[in-house]
């Protein structure tokens, strides 16, 4: 039986390597499991990138094709899927989402020279990781932006509610640390079980604890929601009915801004609380981002949310490196990405990409996104911009009301 399998798979591998003009890219995204909502949207962004690359590089005689596998946000599955795509001769894998998956595939990727681009953000992985590049900045960068925003708005007291996973725990800890630098007192940090089976009781319990920790509302108090969209909606619903939290400012993260569930659950309450969050993105006036957002909306049928431009860039950056060098050798592409990361050569939907020594994104700028009532409807608006190089926050005219006391 083993011989038969080997023969079948060997035949299949020969088939893939014979097509010299076609380069196959693998995508490992969570199409099932807890991050399915991110993975399905991300898969669409990656498909769009492949379509764009095929138009852009048609003259060079290179065609890209995509093989997608479901990683389920499960490290065991992710490694098995990576091994499967490796057996198909694929040496470029994009879109890996969860930090636990990156942890599981790290050694296999280094050992077998597979270039991986990921949207993982955990500071735990800010270590040497050959052949793995992370397109979004780590959560530490986002924490800096959020606390700088709070400081600008005169916040002195803070309570945090976070989803208890590696991302939520890491980001809330980073926010708590950075708050101290600005003299913001963190009165309580409360986690909740983000699994759907625990919803909404777990979120309500965490919100109640945060409310009790804050005690009474004041203009210098704030409530930070470290959540994704679906679980964030349960937090919003609990907080909007809370006598203390409903009277203070709310802040979010890159994973709950633009959330449809959040705004449906309590759009008016978000607007009343002058809710703002930061998402790593180029200036919305940046032509690259505008083009991406337009194309994405047309291609995928909805506006891009937090990580969609990153998914796009995970694929596009690799394909551009392959097309421009004409090489499909992963070792060459690894060196090219390292070099591009030093010079900021690649400019994509998320702006110029610079990497540090660990292949993690640096100098990322953030768009500050908030909720305002537009024509009587709660709507996500671009309220300001955090320049990653200067550390300055620019307030857009439509965002002025959100920045007022």
């Amino acid at each position, binding site marked *: 039986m083993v011989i038969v*399998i080997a023969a079948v798979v060997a035949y299949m591998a020969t088939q893939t390597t014979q097509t010299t003009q076609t380069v196959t890219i693998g995508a490992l995204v969570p199409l099932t499991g807890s991050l399915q909502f991110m993975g399905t949207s991300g898969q669409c962004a990656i498909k769009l990138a492949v379509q764009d690359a095929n138009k852009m590089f048609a003259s060079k005689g290179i065609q890209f094709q995509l093989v997608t596998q479901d990683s389920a946000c499960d490290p065991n599955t992710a490694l098995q899927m990576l091994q499967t795509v490796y057996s198909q001769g694929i040496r470029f894998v994009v879109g890996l989402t969860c930090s636990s998956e990156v942890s599981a595939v790290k050694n296999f990727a280094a050992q077998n020279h597979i270039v991986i681009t990921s949207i993982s953000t955990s500071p735990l992985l800010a270590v040497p990781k050959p052949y793995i590049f992370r397109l979004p900045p780590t959560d530490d960068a986002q924490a800096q932006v959020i606390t700088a925003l709070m400081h600008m708005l005169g916040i002195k007291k803070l309570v945090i509610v976070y989803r208890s*996973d590696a991302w939520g725990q890491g980001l809330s800890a980073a926010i708590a640390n950075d708050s101290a630098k600005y003299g913001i007192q963190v009165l309580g940090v409360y986690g909740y079980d983000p699994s759907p089976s625990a919803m909404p009781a777990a979120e309500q319990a965490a919100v109640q604890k945060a409310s009790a920790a804050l005690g009474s509302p004041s203009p210098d108090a704030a409530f930070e929601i470290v959540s994704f969209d679906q679980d964030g909606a349960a937090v919003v619903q609990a907080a909007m009915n809370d006598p203390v939290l409903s009277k203070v400012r709310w802040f979010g993260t890159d994973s709950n801004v633009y959330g449809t569930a959040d705004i449906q659950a309590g759009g008016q309450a978000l607007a009343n609380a002058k809710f703002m969050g930061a998402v790593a993105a180029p200036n919305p006036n940046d032509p690259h981002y505008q083009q991406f957002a337009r194309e994405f909306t047309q291609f995928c049928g909805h506006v891009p949310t937090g990580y969609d431009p990153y998914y796009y860039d995970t694929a596009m950056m690799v394909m551009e490196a392959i097309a421009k060098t004409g090489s499909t050798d992963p070792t060459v592409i690894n060196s090219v990405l390292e070099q591009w990361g030093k010079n900021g050569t690649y400019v994509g939907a998320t702006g110029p990409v610079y990497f540090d020594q660990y292949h993690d994104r640096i100098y990322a700028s953030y768009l500050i996104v908030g909720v305002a009532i537009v024509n009587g409807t709660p709507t996500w608006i671009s309220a300001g911009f955090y320049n990653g190089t200067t550390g300055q926050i620019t307030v857009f005219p439509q965002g002025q009301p959100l920045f007022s006391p």
Partner: protein
Amino acid sequence: MRRDLLIRSAALALVLVIVAILAFYSPMPENIRVLLQNLMIYIAIYSIFVISLNLEVGYLGLPQFGKVMFLIIGAIAVGGIATKLVLLIYQSYLLKAVGIAPLSNIGQYCMLYQYSVSSLVNQQLAQNPALGLGYFLFGVILAMALSAALGVIFAYPAVRLREDYLGILLLVSGEFLRVVTYYATPVACGVNGAVIPDPFAWASGADRTLVFFAVTVLFLFATFLVFEVVGNSPFGRTLRAIRDAETAAAVFGKDIVKFRIRVLALASAFAGLAGALLAYYFDYTIIGAYLPAYTFIGWTMLILGGQGNNVGAIVGVTVYYVISTILNVYKNALQAALHADPTYLAYIVFGLAIILVLMYRPQGIVPEKPIKTIDLHNLRRRLSEKKD
């Protein structure tokens, strides 16, 4: 009986040797060899897991719906306890090198320093293979001991109850353990997952895979031998008697509860071994990933392969992995042909396979065979020889 055992063991050993030669030394393309090597490691680990499930389900008829619990315990034993022991051994070295004593500040270690620390520990273990082996064996033995103890403790309140109550309790126990330990950082670094130092750090690249494959296959062979002996002993025959007619077995003086406890302890210990091997193989473990689906994947393998015999358990695991690998490879081609989303294709295929097997071949691919004992003629002859 002994001859049968010898034949089956020799056949398994031969298959494993052929597979090893094919996966490591055949002239196949490297990418296919790498896939085969890793596939064989998964098959070996899950075979241990399913053979242990087979003793509970196939031999005794126990509704073991909490089997994933022992993969969790294996992960905790390795990622939570054995890893900490190694950190303790190198504590002063790590304090000098990284500036943090991992065990004194477990939260910070888990969130920020695991990879730096693990890399340093691997360098040390690479120079000290004996310590690496000790650390590996400690993790494995601990996983087996903890699994045996906890398997009995968790099932004890319901072990006297009917199958359905026991099944529900075991299912809940698995989820309970997962949720509690996943959110407790000190256990195995909680939501961050535990980075596990490599006990075979002295071997690198393909050599490391070969060493791990050899070790896993040895454990599979040992597991097969143990469960073959147990299954074909008077103890094993009593289990089948209890499964087929519990009341009749009780009438003949068999203590059902005692047999259930013994089976739970033995099978759980070996499932814990599978959990430990899985954790060492990945060099990383995150307890939140061990959803109840792992239990039901084990059941699927067992139903396909055939219950009540250990060969069927191994065949079931192999068939499952072969089908799922082929599906993964051809999924995208199928998508283009069928114009349908292939995300849930594997679930559909295995769901259908279970229904069809249960309808048309409930005994599975390898059916359970009658137990061979010494025949009556020989028994009488031996007795008369003894009298003389």
